[in-house]
């Protein structure tokens, strides 16, 4: 099994995605997220290089600029302003959830062998493994963390996994759609970030497991 460069980069992205799980320190999480997204942008650029698709270069640049720079920068400012540096706790201890994420990487390889329609396509296997593993990492992050900001990061990681799947399996969706998606993610993060300020102000914590006022 010899990996192509873009497959190796995709795997690198998956590994960074798993490393996000390893700590409850929010700024470290964001740095890993930034690296993870940079790897994904590199995958895009590399695929653009293979397919000679000029619009993919544009998408790669936009992904790098928005998701690897602007969003982590914005979330970092939010963290600084609300003054909460670490996740108040995880339902599964952080190291354990990272190892779980690593095991899920293995599981996603097994699953990627089973995706109907992609079975006869060994070229896509590593790409879909990486994408699925990132998806799992994002879900794990959202399920195991308490801090609201980790939920946002989890959402971003899930979105990255889907994006990576699109890039490796279909060599990118139409340009307009990709740009729309990026804009949408940016706005979603901004809105969520603004809500975070208010959550901190009225609840004096950002622990989503304590947001249980509303029930039937």
């Amino acid at each position, binding site marked *: *099994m010899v990996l192509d460069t873009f497959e190796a980069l995709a795997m690198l992205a998956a*590994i960074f995605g*798993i490393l996000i799980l*390893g700590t*409850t320190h929010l700024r470290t999480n964001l740095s890993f997220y930034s690296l993870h997204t940079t790897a994904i942008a590199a995958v895009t650029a590399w695929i653009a290089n293979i397919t000679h698709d000029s619009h993919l270069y544009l998408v790669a640049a936009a992904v790098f600029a928005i998701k690897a720079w602007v969003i982590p920068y914005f979330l970092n400012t939010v963290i600084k302003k609300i003054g909460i540096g670490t996740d108040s706790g995880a339902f599964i201890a952080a*190291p354990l959830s990272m*190892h779980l994420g*690593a095991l899920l990487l293995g599981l996603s390889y097994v699953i990627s062998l089973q995706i109907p329609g992609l079975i006869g396509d060994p070229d896509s296997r590593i790409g879909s493994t990486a994408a699925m593993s990132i998806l799992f990492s994002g879900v794990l992050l959202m399920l195991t963390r308490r801090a609201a900001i980790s939920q946002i990061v989890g959402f971003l990681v899930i979105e990255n996994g889907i994006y990576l799947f699109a890039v490796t399996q279909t060599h990118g969706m139409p340009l307009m759609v990709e740009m729309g998606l990026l804009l949408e993610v940016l706005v979603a993060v901004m809105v969520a970030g603004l809500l975070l300020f208010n959550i901190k102000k009225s609840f004096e914590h950002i622990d989503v497991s304590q947001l249980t006022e509303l029930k039937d």
Partner: protein
Amino acid sequence: MTLNLHAVLETLGFTATFLLLPPLIVGVIRKTKARFQNRIGAPVLQPYYDLLKLLSKSETISKHTSWIFRSTAAVNLSMLIILAFLAPWTSFRPFDLASDLFLVIYLLALTRFFTVLSALDAGSAFGGFGASREVTLALLVEPSVILCLASLGSVSQSSDLAFVFSFKNMELLNQPGLWFLAGCGLFLASLVELSRMPADDPTTHLELTMVHEAMILENSAANLALVEYSHFLKILILLGISSQCLLHAVPYFWHSTELIRAGASIACILLMAVSIAVIESVAVKLRWTKLPEFIAYSVAMSIFCVFIALGKNLN
């Protein structure tokens, strides 16, 4: 047996390297850290002078110690010298000694065993908790080291580290990812094993936090010199192994000449020393309870290695 001049020179060069290099590495780390803190710092060769100074001092030994304490320094040094001959810390090795993976790992464990024993032997409180911390850390790091090396061995179908790291193994030729991950995992593990920064601060003697320094508190003079030197040698060997992993990840070195590889090995070790200094300058020492989180990263790397090995062997 014909004595070949070339072989003799090679052996002498190898021996001289591993005997003289360790204090230099520590010197480089200390100098870089000093520059980072805007100090001029001691000269790079200062560790050599320190060792010589220690050798000429007179020794003080606690009355409560037994022969274990006396002999530990010598035992450890000799084991580490054997390890320096066995472990693949450089690309050039004069003899074809079979170095089994488990032999290397357990020799390393044995040196730790004796260090811990001597720390307990002196009977001081510091030695006790230093030893307890050291053993806890070792327990956490051990799986990562074993898994990284074992997955390399499993891919190459051999437990002989000399063969695994010989640049001759075609099975491992196209596995830059595996080598890279193993290198990262081992590097993170060696930071802990060597009691470097996120795990332990080698420059402070604060009794609440120190690990390695607490264990060698009772040693003095020549004894201390030997202990320090053994520790430096251990730094060389562990950094050497992880830097060899990283070198193997670069396709260029698979096809280069011996000389370039040898140069690159030494350069890579020194580079790692610099990077340790950088890490120690920017990072803070982790709280004891946070340490498992750090070690988990190393273990995660080793799990990835195992996956690659599994994928390789199943295909």
